[in-house]
């Protein structure tokens, strides 16, 4: 199938690639752009391991076609830290041991970051429902929820 030229801004950088129209954004990020931080756990929109932001909207990149990203901005886990400064969520995930195998972690961090943007002071229940689309098989979620809430608390203090 003829490939399509796609122009995007990924993590702040202008990026161009050629996409087969059948390829998902996740495939394009991983196979054409070399950003393998976003993971494929299911390919059907059920696990959230592929979570990215597309023009500021949280999406499962396995449910978006690569060609749909043309002219849009994409933010992935690779863009979450500023240089060597980790996002508070990233620090708190390490501190709280909120990852075991770590495979779900990139998707959960991207989703949690969005949560804290729309709701800087989420309750436990709000956090759990927001992350209900991100499967983690290792942790039982306990430490993930604690890490997100602790990061939120720290970020609120920084703002105040």
């Amino acid at each position: 199938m003829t490939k399509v030229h796609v122009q995007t801004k990924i993590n702040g950088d202008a990026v161009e690639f050629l996409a087969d129209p059948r390829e998902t954004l996740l495939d394009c990020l991983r196979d054409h752009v070399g950003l393998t931080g976003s993971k494929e756990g299911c390919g059907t929109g059920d696990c959230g391991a592929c979570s990215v932001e597309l023009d500021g909207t949280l999406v499962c990149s396995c449910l978006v076609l690569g060609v749909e990203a043309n002219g849009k901005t994409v933010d992935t886990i690779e863009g979450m830290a500023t240089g060597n400064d980790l996002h508070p969520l990233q620090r708190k995930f390490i501190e709280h041991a909120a990852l075991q195998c770590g495979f779900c972690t990139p998707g959960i961090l991207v989703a949690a970051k969005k949560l804290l943007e729309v709701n800087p002071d989420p309750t436990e229940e709000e956090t759990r429902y927001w992350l209900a689309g991100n499967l983690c098989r290792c942790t039982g979620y306990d430490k993930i929820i604690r890490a997100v809430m602790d990061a939120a608390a720290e970020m609120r203090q920084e703002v105040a």
Partner: protein
Amino acid sequence: MAKDELNTFKLVGTRPDRPDGLDKVTGRARYGADFSLPGMLHAAVVRSPHAHAKIVKIDASKALALDGVKAVVTRADLPTGLTGDEWDLQENTLAGEKALYDGHAVAAVAATSKLLAEEAARLIEVEYEVLPHVIHVDDAMAEGAPVIREGAADPTVPEGLHPNVVKYMEFGRGDVEAGFAEADLVMEKSYKTEATHQGYIEPHACVGQMGSDNKGEMWVCTQGQWFIRKMSAAVLGIEASQLRVTPSEIGGGFGGKTTIFMEPLSLALSKKAGGRPVKIVMTRSEVLRATGPTASASMDVKIGMKTDGTITGARAEFRMQGGAFPGAPVDMALYCAFAGYKLENVQHIGYDVLANRPKCAAYRAPGSPMGAFAVESLVDEMCRELKLDPIEVRIKNGVQTGDRASYGPKFGSIGLKEVLEAVKDHPNLQAELGPNQGRGFAVGYWFNHNGETSVSMAIGEDGTAQVSVGTPDIGGSRASVSLMVAETLGIPYEDVRVNVVETGALGVNEPTHGSRATFATGKAAVEATQGAIKEMCRRAAAEWGIDEEAVEWADGAAQPAGPNAGKFPPMTIKEIAAKMGSTGGPISGHHESVPDGVGASFGAHVVDLEVDPETGRVTILRYLVVQDAGRAIHPSYVEGQYQGGAVQGIGWALNEEYVYDDKGRLANSVFLDYRVPVASDLPMIDTVIVEVPNPGHPFGVRGVGETGITPPLPAIANAIHDAVGVRMTHLPINPPKLLAALKAK
């Protein structure tokens, strides 16, 4: 036992950041599918759409005619003459005469892109002759059931049983009938559990490369690179040492990544394609259809109890199907079933049965959850009947160090009693319960495992330490091994780097399985470190001109042992390391063994839940895990194992199951339909780490990974009984099932 009384360590028991944390929160960590090589091809696998079918013909000509399609392999490309387990592995890798389950691999194709490989796979024509199939264990051993494979039974199977029964076991002691006669209450019930999947979020993935000289390399997500090597070599008829297997970071395994599925195909395709590397990444649906599930079980349990709670006799008969191959963990299920009880009269009978389902793989404490579901459900019901406290009944009958286990040998040091006492003291037991709410309690057990272990460590020129281990790090084992090595050397945690290495770098290691990594690799790492310490003491002694025996190691330095050794200032590891090139060369330590001193782990869980009588939906309100860790090296990751195990058990109890249609096809091969617990299903999972140190490990480690999945199955059934008065004996207890039971009440 309070930890502070026991723990005199500087590092062991602390919670430093894990060494791979930064890579894992930034997306840099490289998992199975993240690896690529120049010139790499991509593969797709053709799978049987039938549960049981003769393969009449495979025609790949149309696929091979496509531009960019480089190779196709079928069973005809694999060597013949394998037997036993190796034949099973080969047959599961690629079907031979028959496809044995929906999803069974039949052919594989490599092409220049993933999309092209998928297209080519669709063009491979397979002609099947569909055969009658059987899915459920009781059906599979009934008269007239379709025979899956003649002659698969091992010599333990008595005559007269269906050929699908491939293994039979029977063991026990005392006189159970006399035991029942002594009892005031005898109850007998049947239970069923359905097959579940380990559900690791990372699908299987590998890149394999092999030339016409049969020398190969593989990069793969696995719990055990040497297992992959041995099994792939056997299936392909190549020499193990000519295959070098490098493990990637692993996105969960839970037992399901201790064996091979499509990995040898990457090598076979690569060889046919002129040695170009071949990548295979499974889809989720392939993972569910063709890898790992655990067995399903049908179980009868009979127990006799006196009015004071004493158990006088117990009998279990378990039947399990583990797919179209021998290996259902019915043996382990029986061993664990009554492990928590001190019994004079006990009998176990088990059947391992073939059915048209994928070959089961190990899943966290294989077998133990099923056995616990049956036994702990019945014990709970009997406690209710006799109006006895279920925790007191466990304490009364509970095994202690030195008692004879239900399965024969005597227990070494165990901490069941300490666990039960800790449960009693926990504030969760005081929480008030409202209408339709109930509390359930159950105990679980796992042996833990040692296994072949080889560890190498070396001192760096700057006095830091590198450790090469062979057990992939799934849940923080690099952190715990670093802690143990740093503690032993007396250096900072940050000065140790633990590397999980490829098969060429060490002797054989069994996988990270059986809760063995922190126990066995940790023990071997400490032994290896002692070797290096001995050498450092020798170097110091030579420098000081005193006897080797007159030097001891403390606080990261060689020191004269006692006043008679002479007066020398301590020689630090940094000083020794800086000079090692001129004092005899590199300083390193090795240890190879199957370490003894395994310590078993008991756990007990308490769940509070609420049943919605309108819908049958169960909501978990509170959850408590109490388990004996022996010693928690890094408590956060011990808690993580407890929490993760509990939640997998909750999923097994309430939602997860393999659903088959009437043609024997898996009906729920995506995460939407195979529903694992999500964050909004759960409360926080409270944990208590009990530490009854294992005398067989230098720091007292038992291994904590597996026990935690066991108690949730019965604990939840028990809590549902407490909440709404119905006894659920068939898992999962999903809303339709529970609603039907409530209606029938």
